[in-house]
């Protein structure tokens, strides 16, 4: 059975591999291009050819007059991202636990959370902006933008938690309770370690989605810009590769975070596999 099957698969394998490789180039090619161009020489422009190679544009980035408030907006974006990450992880974990039992209004809340995910961002941005404006609270990145980001990150967190608990083997918990563990001990020593890798995933989503969010921040950030707003402002008035340097740095930052999260998840799984060779 295996041999003819293999022969049949081979028929489509090469063209599909080509499509896949082209798709990956399509995904990463443009980002790679601006990464290369950000090393333009001081005389270089926004397009090829390269006019020498230098770190000129990266240095420019840190000179205040060149690019608005880069340092400030970066700090705000990172702080906001961390708060959103923390709340997303805690809130979605709690909600995930809540949905393991049925409760009144659970379905309505679940569908509202989905609506929050797929509602056009501009609607939420505008709504929160006007709401803060009319109630006399001035919008700020740490209040209105924080809430706006949660409407985007929490649904992802909840969906990940649903996926986790749907596959969760309840017999581990039952065993812990049978052996006399309290509810808190069961959670801390059994449930939490088992879902930790997914929770790291939720944290990664929470931070990066908030860190890069533009549309939901637009009307809600108030006086001070977050980094994506600052970058958007630059697209209209900066015509040098300093824009690429900024793009390269933030993309590198995101890649570092993603790798760190993936390595942590991998390490957690590995250490668990070593501790419990029976497959726990």
């Amino acid at each position, binding site marked *: 059975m295996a041999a003819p099957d293999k022969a049949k698969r081979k028929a489509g394998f090469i063209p599909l591999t080509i499509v896949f490789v082209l798709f990956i180039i*399509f995904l990463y090619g443009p980002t790679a291009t601006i990464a290369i161009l950000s090393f333009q020489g001081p005389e270089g422009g926004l397009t090829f050819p390269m006019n020498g190679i230098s770190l000129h544009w990266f240095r420019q980035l840190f000179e205040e007059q060149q690019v608005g408030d880069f340092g400030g907006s970066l700090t705000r974006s990172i702080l906001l991202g961390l708060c959103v990450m923390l709340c997303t992880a805690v809130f979605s974990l709690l909600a995930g636990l809540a949905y393991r039992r049925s409760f009144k209004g*659970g379905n309505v809340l679940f569908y509202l959370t989905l609506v929050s995910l797929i509602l056009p961002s501009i609607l939420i941005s505008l709504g929160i902006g006007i709401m803060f404006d009319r109630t006399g609270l001035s919008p700020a990145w740490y209040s209105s933008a924080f809430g706006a980001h949660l409407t985007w990150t929490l649904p992802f967190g909840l969906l990940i938690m649903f996926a986790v608990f749907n596959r969760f083997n309840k017999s581990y918990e039952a065993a812990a309770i049978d052996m006399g563990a309290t509810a808190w001990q069961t959670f801390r020593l059994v449930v939490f370690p088992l879902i930790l890798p997914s929770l790291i995933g939720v944290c990664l989503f929470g931070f990066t989605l908030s860190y890069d969010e533009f549309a939901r921040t637009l009307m809600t950030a108030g006086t001070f810009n977050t980094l994506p707003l600052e970058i958007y402002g630059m697209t209209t008035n900066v015509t040098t590769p300093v824009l690429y340097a900024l*793009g390269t740095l933030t993309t590198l930052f995101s890649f570092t975070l993603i790798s760190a999260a993936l390595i942590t998840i991998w390490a957690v799984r590995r250490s668990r596999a070593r501790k419990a060779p029976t497959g726990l």
Partner: protein
Amino acid sequence: MRFLTANPSYLQVTPLALVILLFLLFPVATIVIVSFWDYNAYQLLPDFIFENYEFLLTSSVTLSAYLKTFFFAITTWVITLTLGFTVAYYLAFYIRSPLLQGVLFVLCTVPFLTSNIIRMISWIPLLGRNGLVNSTLQEINLIDAPIEWLLYSDFAVVLAFVHLYTLFMVVPIFNSMMRIDRNLIEASIDAGASAFQTIFQVVVPLCKSGIAIGSIFVVTLVMGDFITVSLMSGGLSASVGVLIRNEISLLQYPAAAAGAVVLLITVLIMLSIMFRFINIKKEL
């Protein structure tokens, strides 16, 4: 208070419920209320008028913006579905090693966690008048003058949408495909079906809900977009989102709110059609 101690779920779900109430339901209600308000150059005037809607629904600008937005949505949907399905199919049925499969899947999803704006900007050096594509084509004498419609055009908008959102198709479709019992594929081939017959009569029906979830994401993201359209069309195209954004920047909040309500209703109608194909809780 007795229900709190009886079922801790109520307490556990409170933070989520509060966020949804404060930052989803209240803002949407605010938009609906404000869409009936009056305004002048300086301030909003609480009122109950239908002029915002009257103006919106009778304006030819609105109509052309909706047509443009539907055009973007449908074109992007067709391309991302075809591309996303092909990529997911390759990952699910051609990659045998689970490790390689995981690595390639992550490779497809990583860009989702990086900045959309940067990803749009990164097309400029490729598609611009003096960009890589034009200069290469000129060098090999395929064209005499640079192609003008590569950047700041509808083409660029759709390209950016496909670039940004194809992974929203890949992930749910791949997820559905991984649940398909491999024996069904074998059975189909053993029964004499061609590869294409197997794909369209076995695989596609079995990942219908993955396709629906991906479609919901792509369509709603494109329908509500303003940043991709304004950045990639260079301000030459106006989608519904761009119109709302323009009214916001002119501080005409009631007009923007009316636009947002009509957009919301449009999106909800489209969603109610697409949600018929899935049971979302079973998908997770």
